[in-house]
């Protein structure tokens, strides 16, 4: 069993604390992605799991064993580095076999395991080259191959795709997912790219400034962000966030924005807010579309008119840019047609999918 527990883990560099008491339980065979903006402490956390950074406080256990004082080699893990860290003076075959050689495995076993890993990653033809003779994508595969030959309990990935070009990145993403299905191991994967996080993870861990902000399945995090940070970090385009104030109008609570625009408070949130409360209203581009260009709306719909400043056709859909009460917002349309700059369109808002956040704490009022 290779479950991982982080128990109130902290990390200091000198006096500066960069990871502030993280708690996280990762299940056996789970694919967990740590995601967050650059500098939020993802790599540091991963490297503490790997044993490459000393743990300042708290406790990390792998497979029920506390590993705080164990050297990396004793943790039964393997790691793929951002710049691959392939050994330049060894061929691909030697790179793959190095860990097994160090572990004093027999030649036959090394050969068999190396070939097996090569087959999984389809790098059989590259075995006698050196890293310098490989392309970026090939190096990436070799680095993954080196990670899997030892059949470790846990794989750690630190931004493994960030040095690849966009197309290759998408391709390797699928391969990593496929690899996880094949080798069935616990994976902790670090990225700053929320698309990678969404597509790969069983569970996403969103981090900010050395804290864990939210943990959950990708769709849960997408649909129920706990605060404005997660709301704007996860999902593309980011959630539209507009500040406003709660007021009673026509017998129903409304969010009143700048310039007298209003929006009714979704019914399930009506008892979570009070009159006069400052809030931030949030909705995703998919939940505000021009009539006749939208998906069928479940639940309550709300109509409003918006002038479209710019339209960006992407093919199946078109992104629409407008201003609403002083905030720049993005919406979407399907079945695209030509949109003139400044054209006023009638929109449908899926009110039940919108969000309200407390303006002071930024926390979601869905709770």
């Amino acid at each position, binding site marked *: 069993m290779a479950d991982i527990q982080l128990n109130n883990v902290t990390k200091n560099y000198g006096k500066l604390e960069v990871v502030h008491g993280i708690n996280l339980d990762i299940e056996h065979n789970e694919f967990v992605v740590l995601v967050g903006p650059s500098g939020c402490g993802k790599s540091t956390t991963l490297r503490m799991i*790997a044993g490459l950074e000393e743990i300042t406080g708290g406790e990390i256990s792998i497979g029920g064993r506390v590993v705080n004082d164990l*050297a990396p*080699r004793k943790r039964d893990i*393997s790691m793929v*580095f951002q710049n691959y860290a392939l*050994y330049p*003076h060894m061929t691909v075959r030697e790179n793959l076999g*190095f*860990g097994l050689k160090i572990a004093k495995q027999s030649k036959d076993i090394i050969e068999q395991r190396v070939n097996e890993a090569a087959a999984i990653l389809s790098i059989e033809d590259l075995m006698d080259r050196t890293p310098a003779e490989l392309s970026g994508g090939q190096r990436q595969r070799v680095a993954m191959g080196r990670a899997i030959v030892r059949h470790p309990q846990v794989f*750690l990935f630190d931004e493994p795709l960030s040095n690849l070009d966009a197309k290759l990145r998408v391709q390797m993403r699928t391969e990593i997912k496929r690899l996880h299905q094949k080798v069935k191991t616990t994976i902790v994967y670090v990225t700053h790219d929320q698309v990678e996080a969404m597509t790969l993870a069983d569970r996403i861990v969103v981090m900010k400034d050395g804290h864990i902000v939210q943990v959950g399945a990708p769709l849960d995090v997408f649909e129920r962000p706990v605060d404005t940070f997660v709301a704007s970090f996860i999902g593309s385009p980011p959630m539209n966030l507009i500040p406003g104030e709660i007021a009673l109008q026509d017998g129903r609570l409304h969010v009143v924005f700048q310039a007298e625009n209003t929006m009714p408070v979704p019914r399930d949130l009506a008892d979570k807010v009070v009159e006069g409360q400052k809030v931030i209203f949030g909705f995703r581009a998919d939940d505000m579309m021009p009539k006749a260009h939208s998906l069928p709306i479940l639940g309550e719909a709300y109509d409003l008119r918006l002038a479209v400043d710019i339209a960006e056709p992407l093919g199946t859909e078109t992104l629409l840019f407008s201003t609403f009460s002083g905030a720049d917002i993005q919406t979407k349309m399907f079945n695209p047609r030509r949109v003139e700059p400044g054209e006023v369109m009638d929109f449908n808002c899926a009110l039940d999918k919108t969000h309200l956040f407390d303006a002071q704490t930024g926390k979601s009022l869905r709770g």
Partner: protein
Amino acid sequence: MAMITKKKIGTVATWIMTFLLMIVICLPGLWVVLTGFRPNREILAKPAIWIPENLSLDNFAKIFGFGAEQIAIPVPAYFTNSLVIALTSTFIALLIGMSGGYAFARYRFKHKNGYFLGLMLSRTVPGIALSLPIFMVWSKLGLIDTKLGMIIIYVALNIPFTIWLIDGFFRQIPKEMSEAAQVDGCTRWQAFWQIEFPLAKSGVASAGIFAFLTSWNEYALASQLTRSTDSKTLPVGLMDFTAQFTIDWAGMSAMAVIIIVPALILTFLVQKHLIAGLTFGGVKG
């Protein structure tokens, strides 16, 4: 048309200047080497004999104690001393330098620049200035005129620069290499010898050659701290050929050849890595 001729003139000028430069660099050495193969009689001839008439190995045979003419200068002993002292001190300086260079390249610690500067400053002490107190200390310790005494000094002399060079070479190797090896099952010690050392090998070798040459060529300290065939090195021995008023030019030139040849061979081996080492260590920080 004008452009082309201007360019041509430029090219020709470049070549002429390069040619002159090479003459200035090579001619003095070549002249000394040539002299090493000529008899004293021809060297001292007036008017000068420009085209050598008698080239022979006689001078070399003489200083190595073969041949008819014998001289009292024990060059084979000096040669052995130089070799033993230079090789041993280089080996030790490399071990210490690798350890120190690795510390500078891989660890963060307080006052790092200060320690580095301290190391460098220890090297700036002029040999002759250092020789006075070492002379006093060494005579108390019985290290005057011993190979051990010289080896210890040359180790100290070579440590700063060796650390500088090796630090530069280790910095070029990403830290992730060693980390990957540790995750792959190595101890830090194994990771060093299996991964980082092989990658820095050529740099370490060039640092070694540099250290060897420093020891091989050193004069200021050796001239004061060695006396006899027990420890006298070639550069000090060279001065044996000068008496108060006479100089054995032929013998001295032959000995110069013996000192130069290893230096030239090693320069040839080291040149590529040396530039890389100095600039990476120095500029890329």
